[in-house]
């Protein structure tokens, strides 16, 4: 959070671009936009699940140890196998594409083509974990037993396993092998809240209502700047120095002078936001709104 940067917009825009998005056409024919789950969150979810698996395995082992007789121990062994092999599959079947780890992190498995997630896809995407998780782990822990031969061969195996494990990092949708085979992907299941309308009509007595902007003054910015301003107004009000910086920048850029006293920064920004949004939405209706200030400036220059 750099308060001294020319504008707070830079970091926000970067953050937004880092999250890959993926369109999936719903059966209603409307493209829905999913945010691809970042690799770090997937890994964290996996770790949580692994910890839970180990805990339940320990529990089963403890119970069957105390049960004492051999049959119980054999059953315990089977239970361990079942827990290990079907933890992910069963949870994703029951909870519609979520395991405890994914649920905690707000992640979810979906079918990459917009169709409902099928049981077969869930089964397939988890069957390959054996190669993707177990094999590399064992190779790491017991290199002598797992990696055959000497010299080049183990090295090649290690490179191969590394490629396999890091596969999600090499494609845009963060697909691991199982996802590719099953035709699934893991997305964030976000829960944005509907916040207050910033451009709501205000009574004539409100301070914002007194501020006027000429059409020419609303030509300077495009949609991106509008969104940055929205972010600033929604969560930046706690930092008055940011508001002041941005308000000053805007006033200078559009050459705006108050009729009377200089309004409070927040009031000015709210009024400008409402006016700018109305202007850009009008353009959107008639064709297209300028993407950003360069787009807007380009349009003006051509005129």
């Amino acid at each position, binding site marked *: 959070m750099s308060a001294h940067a020319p504008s707070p917009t830079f970091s926000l825009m970067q953050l937004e671009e880092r999250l890959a998005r993926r369109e999936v056409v*719903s*059966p*209603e024919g*409307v493209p*829905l936009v999913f945010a691809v789950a970042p690799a770090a969150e997937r890994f964290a979810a996996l770790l949580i699940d692994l910890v839970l698996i180990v805990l339940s395995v320990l529990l089963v082992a403890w119970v069957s140890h105390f049960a004492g007789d*051999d*049959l119980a*121990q054999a059953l315990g*062994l*089977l239970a361990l*196998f079942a827990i290990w*092999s079907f933890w992910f599959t069963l949870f994703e079947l029951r909870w519609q594409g979520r395991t405890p780890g994914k649920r905690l992190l707000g992640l979810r498995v979906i079918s990459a083509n917009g169709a*409902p997630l099928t049981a*077969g*896809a869930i*089964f*397939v995407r988890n*069957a*390959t974990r*054996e*190669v993707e998780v177990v094999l590399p782990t064992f190779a790491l822990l017991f290199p002598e037993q797992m990696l055959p031969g000497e010299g080049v061969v183990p090295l090649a195996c290690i490179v191969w396993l590394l490629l396999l494990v890091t596969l999600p990092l090499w494609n845009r949708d963060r697909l691991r092998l199982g996802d*590719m*085979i*099953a*035709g699934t992907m893991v997305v964030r*299941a*976000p*829960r*944005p809240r*509907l916040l207050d*309308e910033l*451009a*709501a*009509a*205000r009574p*004539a007595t409100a301070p914002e*209502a007194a501020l*006027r*902007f000429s*059409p020419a003054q609303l*030509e300077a910015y495009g949609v991106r700047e*509008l*969104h940055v301003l*929205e972010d600033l107004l929604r969560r930046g009000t706690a930092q008055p120095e940011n508001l002041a910086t941005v308000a000053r920048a805007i006033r200078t850029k559009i050459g705006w002078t108050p009729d009377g006293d200089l309004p409070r920064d927040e009031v000015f920004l709210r009024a400008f936001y409402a*006016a700018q*949004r109305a*202007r850009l*939405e*009008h*353009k*959107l*209706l008639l*064709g*297209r*709104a300028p993407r950003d200030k360069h*787009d807007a400036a380009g*349009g*003006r220059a*051509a*005129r």
Partner: protein
Amino acid sequence: MDAAQDATTTTPAPPAPDPSGPTATAAETRSVAFRRARAASWRELETLLARVERHGARSLDADELARLAVLHRATISSLSVARGISLDRNLLEYLEALAVRSHLSVHAPRRDLLSLLARFFLRDFPGEVVARRRHVLASTACLLLGMLVGYAFTRSDLDTYDAFVSPDMADGRDPDATYDELREPLYGGQESLADTLVHFSAFLFTHNARVGMLAFALGILAGLPVIVLLFYNGASLGAMVALYDVRGLGPDFWAWVLPHGVTELFAIVLCGAGGLLIAQDVLFPGRHTRLANLRVAGRRAGVLLGGALAMLFVAGLVEGIFRQVVTSMPVRFVVADGFVLGWILYFVALGRRREAT
């Protein structure tokens, strides 16, 4: 270019909701009015979705379900409209997320687990096995070839046994073992009913399921590992057969291994066939991209793998219970034959029917 055109066409037109005009405070922009009119239905959908996500769709009664469908479509349409008229990012993000949530809840598979399983074992699995018979045959050939090689080598020179059977798999059944040591686990019923063999069966089950999954999962690694794995497993079985054969326990060993081995080996073969199926589509993609092929082949192979795991479970049961109770060689052979017949009937009868439809 576009921007230039836009600018020339839009600027001369007097903007209707001109915020700079005297009516600025009274006039609402379209997006604001739109939101005011629709927001209530979004909130209603949100509360319904929260219930579905927490307690499942069954917690809704018929009216609420119908309402959910209506609200879902309304929200999808709201999203389309908002994308066209609104530049309020919070509103757009909210609608995107709501539409996604509702999409996932409304278009979720509603089948219960039981009918899902029934459909799988009565239709999908046998049908896929019959449809992929060539891969199954190829996979069987790999296993049989391994068995032959393992048998031939061990038969001619017992010292090669260790090359085919790992020590923990052998579990004392190696060339140094005496006749009795070799014979004991085959009939080790009565006095040590549960002891070693229950453990061993559990181990085998886990071991074989692992092998099956590996054979499948390695399929993407271009097929060679699948073939090697099948071959190696066949070889270790062949080597064991040779060892018992040399000691004059050949038939006894077959009687011991076949009742469950029939099912187990067939399951492993099916996993291998799934792996080969994937390998084939990755190596020779044909008209589609490799990734698209991988998806199609992956689902088919997944059916084979799922069924094979169930078969391994059956094999594990036979191994863990039947083999301890029945020690008579003829009965063991009869049961083994019964399994061969049973599986063939199951696949041919149910699989063919599916192919016909």
